[in-house]
């Protein structure tokens, strides 16, 4: 008999950081709810996550103790509110390893963050057009990298959320630029085979989803980033589904912009983030005009504040930002590596369990590698609406429909899918409840 010696320093199973799921669940008041007489089984965290008491407390405390507008007053409450708001910015920056808190722009959500970048492009393009016809103007300083016109190209993929499709379609319409996209393989992976042609000297921006909200695929971006650098384009990563579930390091990712949304990461609704490299944000023209984004205003014209203020016109979602800071603290407390590992185990378990359901077809990667805990499927030819309804009667909350990613449904030839998605509080018991529920669906529609 031979014994296998484990080389020292090799990470072992037990070295993986873990946490006590039952204790974590106790932090989420909503998880005690019953739905239709059954314990709540919430499998829709990719849609929006639940919020722990730690976040809800901060939200309430902000309004009860520190409520005031930010950046506009010398009084004590105003100072406290401003400090809390800016501290949240700092926490978010640290969370994604941004070199500076000034690289974090608070928005309403991911959608607004993507639109912000798209409108910066068209404003830059319009300004340079205006500058050409009526020189001299400040617009002549518009950065070449944000100028788009006929002949220029924007690249996305077939697995994007509508939030990362429609703003670029509209931008292409406004500027005359061409929209192109990466296809998706039968296994639900990004098809990079056309990379060299797709991303070329005409490409101005590549905007890609980091983790698909429908297929669960986590895209490896290194090859694409290298190509983007080669042709001098910009790279935006839609990290709406990755930031909540895995450690994200913007320096490591080497992107130019990332976006994410607070409500999917234990934070409140109404707050999202655009992270951009400082030098790029500084080169971007403003999008929304108003209070707080200016340097000086006269009736003849205005000059603008430096980022991030330049992109935060008007009173921002202050309490929401502060609560997002609390969410980041909560996630950091558990550890993003531990959360990622927890979900990886759940995903492996769920892929196995779902594979045992007769007539079930999984869309997207069927192995728990290069994918997250979001699994879409079809159950024979029962319509997802009916699947979701029967599951709801058993307390199991899944999402049904096209998941704001209709091109993916089209790609796989179905009008809709059923999706189960997991988070840090999900248990294998809940996956068992899903599988049992699917049995019930088969009974009703069999």
């Amino acid at each position: 008999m031979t014994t296998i010696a484990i080389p020292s320093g090799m990470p072992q199973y037990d070295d993986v950081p873990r946490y006590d799921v039952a204790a974590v669940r106790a932090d989420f008041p909503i998880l005690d709810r019953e739905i239709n007489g059954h314990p709540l089984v919430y499998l829709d965290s990719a849609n929006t996550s639940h919020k722990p008491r730690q976040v809800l407390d901060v939200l309430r405390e902000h309004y009860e103790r520190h409520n005031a507008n930010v950046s506009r007053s010398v009084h004590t409450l105003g100072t406290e509110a401003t400090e809390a708001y800016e501290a949240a910015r700092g926490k978010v920056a640290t969370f994604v390893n941004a070199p500076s808190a000034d690289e974090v722009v608070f928005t309403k959500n991911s959608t607004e963050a993507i639109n912000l970048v798209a409108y910066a492009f068209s404003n830059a393009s319009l300004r340079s057009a205006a500058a050409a016809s009526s020189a001299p103007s400040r617009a002549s300083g518009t950065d070449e990298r944000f100028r788009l016109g006929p002949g220029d190209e924007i690249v996305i993929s077939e697995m994007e959320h509508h939030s990362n499709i429609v703003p670029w379609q509209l931008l292409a319409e406004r500027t005359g630029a061409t929209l192109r996209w990466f296809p998706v393989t039968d296994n639900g992976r990004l098809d990079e085979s056309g990379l060299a042609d797709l991303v070329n000297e005409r490409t101005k921006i590549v905007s890609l989803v980091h983790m698909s909200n429908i297929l669960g695929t986590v895209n490896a971006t290194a090859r694409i980033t290298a190509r983007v650098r080669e042709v001098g384009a910009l790279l935006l990563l839609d990290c709406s589904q990755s930031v909540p579930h895995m450690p994200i390091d913007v320096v490591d990712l080497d992107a130019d912009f990332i976006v994410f949304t607070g409500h999917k990461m234990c934070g409140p609704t109404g707050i999202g983030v655009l992270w951009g490299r400082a030098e790029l944000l500084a080169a971007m023209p403003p999008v929304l005009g108003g209070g707080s984004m200016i340097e000086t205003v006269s009736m003849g014209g205005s000059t603008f504040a430096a980022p991030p203020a330049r992109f935060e016109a008007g009173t921002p979602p202050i309490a929401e930002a502060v609560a997002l800071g609390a969410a980041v603290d909560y996630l950091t407390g558990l550890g993003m590596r531990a959360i990622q590992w927890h979900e990886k185990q759940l995903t492996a378990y769920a892929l196995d369990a779902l594979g045992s359901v007769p007539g079930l077809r999984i869309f997207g990667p069927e192995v728990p590698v290069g994918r997250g805990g979001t699994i879409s499927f079809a159950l024979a030819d029962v319509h997802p609406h009916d699947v979701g309804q029967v599951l709801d009667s058993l307390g199991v909350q899944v999402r049904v429909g096209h998941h704001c990613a209709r091109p993916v449904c089209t790609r796989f030839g179905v009008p809709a899918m059923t999706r189960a998605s997991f988070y840090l509080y999900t248990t294998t018991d809940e996956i068992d409840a899903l599988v049992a529920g699917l049995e019930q669906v088969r009974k009703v529609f069999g």
Partner: protein
Amino acid sequence: MQLESLYQEIILDHYKHPHGRGLRDATEPDDRVGEAHHVNPTCGDEVTVRVATDGEVLHDVSYDGMGCSISQASASVLHELLTGRDTAEAYRVHEAFVALLSGRGQVTPDEEVLGDGVAFEGVARYPARVKCALLPWMAFKDAAARAGVGASPSEVKA
């Protein structure tokens, strides 16, 4: 919530064995034909309804589509209830069906008027599914208008 109130036998029956499915050409030489395609953007349900009428009688209400049991059963019931009716009567049925579905479960359906349509009483209590049930009926309304038989006086409030 009782699942059985939503998925009544009648509905599952119409879903599994749809009546009059498939788009058909007009058989009467004087008929005008109108067609409408409606989609439910939130779930991707689709239905096409075609109406063949001489302006007095709906000689055929044919349909095709894909979607959940509720929308497909509703199309089957639509066909069954309205084919062969005179237009004024058809609109009374249409109105009664829309009123039932917009009634949040507070409207008691009249079986005389609605036939198998009464089975949708339970659906009215599931706001997320009301649109599924109404999809073919709204497509019908457009198709009928295109065939020149005017619009239903009722509007959806769901």
